[in-house]
């Protein structure tokens, strides 16, 4: 079984909103009609987006860290938004696990958005139907596009390659390897929704240096012999390498 999903590397995301812009551009120009905006040049612009980038600050100054956090539908494996839909407009595709809304069936009751804990479904106030990330289902299977472009618009736009796309059920896919090797995690695991999208945590490359590594055990001048250190008779690394 295939489950397409995104893996978002928070270690790399710089919060540039390129994915948001490209998502909007692609999805507003599609067959399904525009992602409506209201008041775009006014004081209170608002509109429909399938992807948002948020920013959080972790810690207290001076030990703070900025986390840019892109958020779109996670294409849950147990999507709570699907069974509640009274019309069947919201559904999860068997063949690739994408959660979609049929805009011709949706009655705009908003019930599915109540049932999603992540706040990623947005009603289009003009078309009056529920919209959400489609993983660019109209791109990724388009044989008219060169193969390397058959990816979601956000993935193609990301200048830092913070967004990976692939089948998280295939253990050898790039996304699965990234989740496995870089500790990918799901959001709000407490609800058992089993999100398919995963996030890779902030990672720091650290070199751990022990005190005795700063001091040469066999320093003939003994000038550095200030700290507790192994007895001279004990073997040290230098014994092995110094010859």
């Amino acid at each position, binding site marked *: 079984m295939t489950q397409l999903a995104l893996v978002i590397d928070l270690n790399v995301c710089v919060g540039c909103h390129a994915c948001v812009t490209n998502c909007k551009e692609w999805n507003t120009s599609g067959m399904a009609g525009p992602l409506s905006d209201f008041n775009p040049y006014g004081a*209170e612009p608002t509109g429909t987006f399938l992807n948002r980038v948020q920013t*959080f600050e972790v810690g207290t100054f001076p030990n703070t860290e900025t986390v840019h956090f892109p958020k779109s539908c996670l294409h849950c494996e147990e999507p709570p938004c699907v069974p509640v839909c009274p019309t069947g407009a919201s559904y999860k595709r068997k063949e690739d696990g994408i959660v979609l809304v049929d805009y011709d069936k949706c009655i705009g009751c908003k019930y599915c958005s109540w049932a999603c804990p992540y706040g990623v479904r947005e009603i289009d106030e003009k078309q009056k139907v529920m919209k959400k990330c489609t993983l660019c289902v109209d791109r990724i299977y388009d044989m008219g596009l060169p193969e390397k472009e058959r990816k979601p618009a956000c993935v193609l736009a990301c200048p830092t390659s913070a967004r990976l796309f692939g089948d998280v059920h295939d253990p050898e896919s790039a996304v699965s390897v990234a989740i496995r090797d870089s500790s990918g995690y799901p959001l709000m695991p407490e609800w058992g929704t089993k999100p398919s999208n995963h996030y890779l945590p902030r990672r720091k490359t650290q070199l751990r240096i022990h005190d005795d590594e700063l001091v040469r055990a066999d320093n003939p001048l003994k000038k550095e012999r200030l700290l507790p250190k192994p007895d001279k008779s004990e073997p040290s690394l230098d014994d092995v390498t110094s010859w």
Partner: protein
Amino acid sequence: MHPAFSVIFLTTLIGVGQGLFLALYTGQVYALFHVLSAEGDRQFYAVGSLIALAFLIAGLVSSFFHLGHPERAWRSAAQWRTSWLSREVIVLPAFMACVFGYGVAHYFGWNVPLFTLGETLQVDLIMLIGAAGTLLCFALFVSTGMIYACLRFLQEWHTPLTVSNFILLGGASGFALAAAFAALAAPALTGFYGKWALIITVLAFISRTASLVRNHKLKPKSTLQSAIGVRHKVIAQKSQGFMGGSFNTREFFHGKSASALRSVKWLFIALTFALPFVLLAWGLSDNTASLLLLAFLVQYAGLIAERWFFFAQANHPQNLYYQTIS
């Protein structure tokens, strides 16, 4: 959550309609078993059913204002296997048909016994329609309640108390209306309906208070830590990704202050329970229709406040992502 008046009116209006129908049928069943000596005439039941139906229709009409595409509403009967909303959409018209049929059967007096249960219990068409209506009435209460109670992230709603509140609050308002109606049209029945209205109002008070206490003690399961997956005690949002608001900031926040919320709570406790109780008791002892009618009206106003509070109090986990504009 943002309290939408379309849904507030839907749930409170059909609650009254359901309660009124239950009151009418209960009275009839009591009379059948000779627990109650008095019985209304044909017209009383026919007009009563008509009033109940009017409330149900008003609720249905108001629900359409909630939909983006009301012309597609028929589609919402499709997913009854999984969706409580879909079940409600099916049960509501079926129940309305029963109420209509019950009224018509009374009006034309279709009370020829069809068969006899046990020794003496004669069952006619009216009783059968009424029984079906009662079943559907409870099915409708459960469906309406479960629409909210089944959403496990909305912890304030995810409790059986949500369903019992819908049943008892609808029942109380319906019986109160029945008492007022009886005072005008069938005075002998006023006491019966009125006493039940008092009892159900007390039960509703207990159930609603229990849910208030429960919700007061709730601890949110989701935190900002689990929402973004960073393990640190201090996390502050610096930007939610837009500045002019979005569906997420409009649909899931009530936008009122905590003190406003508290005031609405005390208001609904007074209007739904305390005041109607006094007015009902007073109206019953005096046998004044106007007091009973006032009791119903006050209680209905209280129910609007109650439902508003019910929505406003529910705190959706998605709100964790929308704390700071920028």
